């Protein structure tokens, strides 16, 4: 059964230095408040996992939480580059950042294998690209039935996966809808999971096409209204496109970023929109 708890307690309890941590969300339902709480609690040496690391990962990398990033596309969507990510890769600031780089299809299949309890997944991808030459976790494999050469990628099983969702009930059953990304796969692949939600309700009303993560498949649930900002939660909030644009000059400069971090994360109460 999922524990209903506060964000600060959940992060203190579930996220440890050195852990492999996935904060998923494909443009929609990104657990930004949880990422900033990880910064606030000064976690170190994390291996961060995410298909599309964007602003919150830029913030976590710039704050020195990560030693490694496993990803398939790192950018500020519709705006440009992640400058803290670039600075860490190119100049090791504030600490060196190792990278393990995949394609979206590769990452999605790594989560599927993780959620399925299998050691690896197979796909017809990566062929002819330079990715297998720089990423150890892509290997050719021969189909035992047809002889076709395919690519194998190992399962991703994070120590903890964190996602945001629209709502949960008081027992900790979670419901989410809209662009569901790899939210379900990330939670089911992980050893421990935290779901931040817009609200906790007495009863979950069924939503066509919606996903329910049963209470017994989730470790902890925390109510964090607006916890996906500047991303969005369909039915609750709109994407704050201006924030994504405003991030570019802040992230571009080490001093400006450090000031932002002091004022908007370390000094800010939990759950307050930076």
């Amino acid at each position, binding site marked *: 059964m999922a524990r209903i708890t506060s964000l600060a307690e959940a992060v203190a309890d579930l996220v440890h230095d050195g852990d492999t941590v996935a904060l998923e969300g*494909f*443009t*929609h339902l990104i657990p930004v408040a949880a990422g900033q709480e990880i910064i606030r609690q000064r976690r170190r040496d994390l291996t961060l996992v995410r*298909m*599309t690391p964007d602003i919150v990962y830029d913030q976590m990398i710039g704050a020195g939480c990560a030693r490694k990033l496993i*990803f*398939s*596309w*790192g*950018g500020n*969507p*519709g705006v440009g*580059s992640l400058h803290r*990510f*670039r600075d860490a*890769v*190119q100049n090791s600031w504030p600490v060196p950042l190792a990278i393990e*780089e*995949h*394609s*979206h*299809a590769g990452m*999605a*299949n790594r*989560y*599927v294998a993780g959620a399925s309890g299998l050691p690896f997944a197979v*796909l*017809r*991808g*990566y*062929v*002819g*690209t*330079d*990715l297998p030459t*720089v990423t150890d976790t892509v290997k050719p494999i021969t189909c035992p039935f047809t002889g*076709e*050469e395919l690519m194998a990628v190992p399962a991703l099983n994070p120590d903890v996966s964190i996602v945001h969702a629209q709502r949960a009930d008081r027992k900790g059953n979670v419901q989410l809808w*809209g*662009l*569901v*990304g*790899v939210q*379900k*796969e990330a939670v089911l692949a992980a050893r421990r999971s935290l779901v931040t939600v817009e609200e906790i309700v007495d009863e979950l009303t069924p939503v066509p*096409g919606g996903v329910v993560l049963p209470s017994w498949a989730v470790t902890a649930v925390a109510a964090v209204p607006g916890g996906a900002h500047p*991303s*969005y939660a*369909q039915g609750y909030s*709109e*994407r704050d*496109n201006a924030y994504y644009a405003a991030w570019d000059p802040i992230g571009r400069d080490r001093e400006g970023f450090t000031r932002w971090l002091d004022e908007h994360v370390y000094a800010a109460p939990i759950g307050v929109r930076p």
Partner: protein
Amino acid sequence: MMTVAAARALGDGQICFVGIGLPSTAANLARTTHAPNLVLIYESGTLGSKPDRLPASIGDGVLAETADAVISVPEVFNYWLQPGRVDVGFLGAAQIDKYANINTTVIGGDYAHPQVRLPGAGGAPEIAASCGEVFVVVRQSHRSFVDRVDFVTSLGHGRGDGERARLGLRGAGPTLVITDLGVMRPDETGELILRAVHPGVTVDEVRAATGWELKVAADLTVTPAPTAGELATLRDLKARS
């Protein structure tokens, strides 16, 4: 001109895998002009999106709200893209070479110590591998059109002469490259040949913006100028976005 030329390349009823930015603008222009039955698939998990404005990102809520179905990301790649259910993939590029190989990973230096770290692969390698054909839209300059890309993120025609087929890739790969200067298509070896220039652009200008000895088709044409209708629809789409 680049957006209009890209939109015109899409046929009515085609299934199109769309990237954000120029590809998305072009695909939506096509859908609202000559190709009302164009099916748009976005990698965020929307099948048959019909947005009434240009989405700000591949995960814009308007794509989910106007889609025939919203599915998970593993499903997009495994059930819809990989088996070859998509006719056209639409890609951008930071660097593209003479055989239409695409780089969106690193520029300069080596992989571990690049001069410029780019966002990376995203869905592009599998889009390039599995779609029936691929259209590339990219601004042309000496820096973006290079003899050989620094990193092959997505395979075009490899080093030419049938390399794609030898590797077992199922789609035809890049069949059309549209820039702000003109239009290129590969010849039978896979090398990009200039087939058309946009109105007011000279062949010398295109050559000067290309990092290899660009071949020009004997029957080079000039892209027809955008019609008043196309321009009005494009302005209207942008105004609503």
